[in-house]
């Protein structure tokens, strides 16, 4: 299964959802695609379709209005899948956590695998986090097969 594992690690497709971020993290996330960082080196593709994605990258804190949307996107992704929370808002709710409409970090709604803190998170951090997520993706599959 060496080849298959390798293939899984080398082809993580991610979907990005902005859950109500200030766009700081989004800009940093998108800059990962630019020539300077070029995450396509690692086979990472930013897809718009949760049905084809492996990694859900969320920025911003969850609020009452969009928590169902977030859940919905997550539910449409096929197993195995991992969730990466990018930015402090996505991790904990950040400075918005006490707002009347904010639920908190996305781990209130989804099982988060990797937390990438920062305000905004730096591209290097994000790439690091996604690398961690890729490792988790491989592990998840093994666990699933054993189970």
């Amino acid at each position: 299964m060496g080849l298959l594992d390798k293939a899984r690690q080398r082809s993580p497709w991610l979907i990005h959802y902005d859950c109500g971020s200030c766009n700081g993290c989004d800009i940093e996330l998108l800059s990962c695609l630019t020539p300077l960082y070029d995450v396509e080196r690692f086979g990472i593709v930013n897809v718009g379709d949760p049905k084809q994605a492996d990694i859900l990258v969320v920025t911003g804190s969850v609020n009452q209005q969009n928590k169902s949307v977030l859940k919905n996107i997550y539910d449409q992704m096929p197993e195995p899948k991992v969730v990466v929370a990018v930015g402090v808002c996505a991790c904990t709710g950040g400075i918005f956590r006490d707002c009347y409409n904010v639920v908190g970090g996305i781990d209130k709604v989804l099982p988060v695998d990797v937390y990438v803190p920062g305000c905004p998170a730096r591209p290097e951090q994000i790439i690091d986090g996604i690398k961690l997520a890729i490792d988790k993706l491989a592990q998840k599959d093994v666990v699933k097969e054993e189970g």
Partner: protein
Amino acid sequence: MQISLLLNVLLPFISAVIVYFLKNERMRNIVIIATALVVMASSVVIAVYGYNTFAGHPLGNINLDRWIAIGDLLLSLYILYISVSLKNAMLILLTLLQLIPMFVFENFSGANLDVLHPIYADHLSVIMNLIVSFVGTLIWIYAISYMREDEEHKGIRPSRQNRFFFILLLFIGAMNALIFSNDLIWVYFFWEITTISSFLLIGHDRTAEAKQSSTRALLLNSIGGVMFVIGIILGYHFFNTVDIQTLISHRASGMLLLPFAFLCLAAFTKSAQIPFQSWLLGAMVAPTPVSALLHSSTMVKAGVYLILRLVPAFYGSWLAGVIAIFGAFTFITASLMAISQSNGKKILAYSTIANLGLIISAAAINSPVAVAAAIMLLIFHAISKALLFLCVGTIEHGIGSRDIEDMRGLINKMPFTTLITVIGLVTMLLPPFGVLLSKWLVIETAAKNPLLVFMIAIGSALTVVYYARWIGILLSRTSSKDVVQHEKRDPFVRIPLSVLAMLSIVISVTVTSIFNGLIAPQVVEYFHRLGVIAQEGSIGTSYGGFSLWPVFLALALALLGGYVVLKGSNQYAMPYAPGESAQEYKVIKVAGKETKMPKAKVSNYYFSDVISENRLTPWLDVAAAVLIVAMFGVVIL
């Protein structure tokens, strides 16, 4: 032998009269089904035994010519009566233009109209007879239950079904008689019967629209009738005979082709070629069995049948060249028009016109291979198209609409009918099924003529668009949510649909045997050569070949693969929807005000701004008229 021919031709006439006077529905159905079975059986007997064996007059010494002349006169007078009661001056004029010359020609010109063998059966007539006898009678059976529902639906009291079936049965008799006639005057008589049947059946519902459409059909077909009369008289003038076999044995050229040009023009009107297409489109107001029987699989085929009969006469001439272009022109323009339609029946009507155009074009390509392809297309198209019309009729009764946009997800509501419809569409649209196989053969043969192949290539690409999207729409379904309803269908509907669907597949699988058994002998008889080898599941010419088995094998493997994977673990999900709209928000708050959410709606591309039926039709008519003028031009010059 004689007896099966008599049964095949005369029994429908007799049964028609019986049916007309039978008020009891049960009894009537029994008569219809019995007649259907006899007609089918007799056509098989003719097909097995009956080539060129009908020497002499079928009824011994009775002078049928006389009777047919009288019948013809009465029929013309009846049409005249209708024209007068419709108060349509044009129609009266056209009827008189048929009636008077024909009467004078038959009685006062001193012409010798005797034909040695008025009945003639070769492979072409047998093919046509099989189509009419099988498809036609299956449609009778379908019509039994359809008309019952239809009358309930429209609240027609008292029932007018006896009249309906009278014409339907009469029509099949006339069609079979037309097929076996070798005397142009006989052909003309039965030709006129089909015209009047079509008129009566289109007007069956007696609505304003039906009335208008039926008048138009009669008018345009009367133009064809006039052309037919001119063709007969000119033909006699040039060749001193009305015997079709003698006529086509002359390798005419120049002016001598004029009668054939007129007969072809008559055929164009019957086959609703552009610019005569409007009557067939209007004819769609008639009950569906009528559309299936007359306006797709049999009556309109009489036109192309006549052309296929006459092919040896103008083979290789300039006239043939122009007819080929004319047919291809109809093919491409009718296909284009079909794209702009969402009315299922109208799509089928345009597609019928297009396919008839292709048959005409192929018949005139000046190659035995193309004539073979034309006959092939005639067979396959008749079955698949009749099936599709019956399907649309059933769907219309099921959901109350014939608009394809309303057929979204029909697989959930009417699984049986939908699957049959999909079979019909696939056999019309995709190789290795017969229609496409014939189309392939036509393109390969037409390739010598770039202009022709240009039009056919674009036309067939257009065909893909309107059929493919129809299949997709029918099958749309969300398995995790939609429950397939149980579909109750009357056996009278179920049986014809299933038989036709099976037939459309079986003849595609056995295409080589059909080709060798029926089509090849006809082409050899015409041209003494063939140029096509059909064996072991492949059809080959000197410049190409189509092997069917690999394609069937690949399709079977694909279905098997799909089945195996479907058996495995799959999770059924909802279609993708971006987060929010997946939930059904009916009302949202915008700036404090509650606003209704507009429902997302997807529909096909119809390009109604570019391909506008109303705006384009006059131009196309003009272009087609130019081609017809060119047709006569090349004959006269």
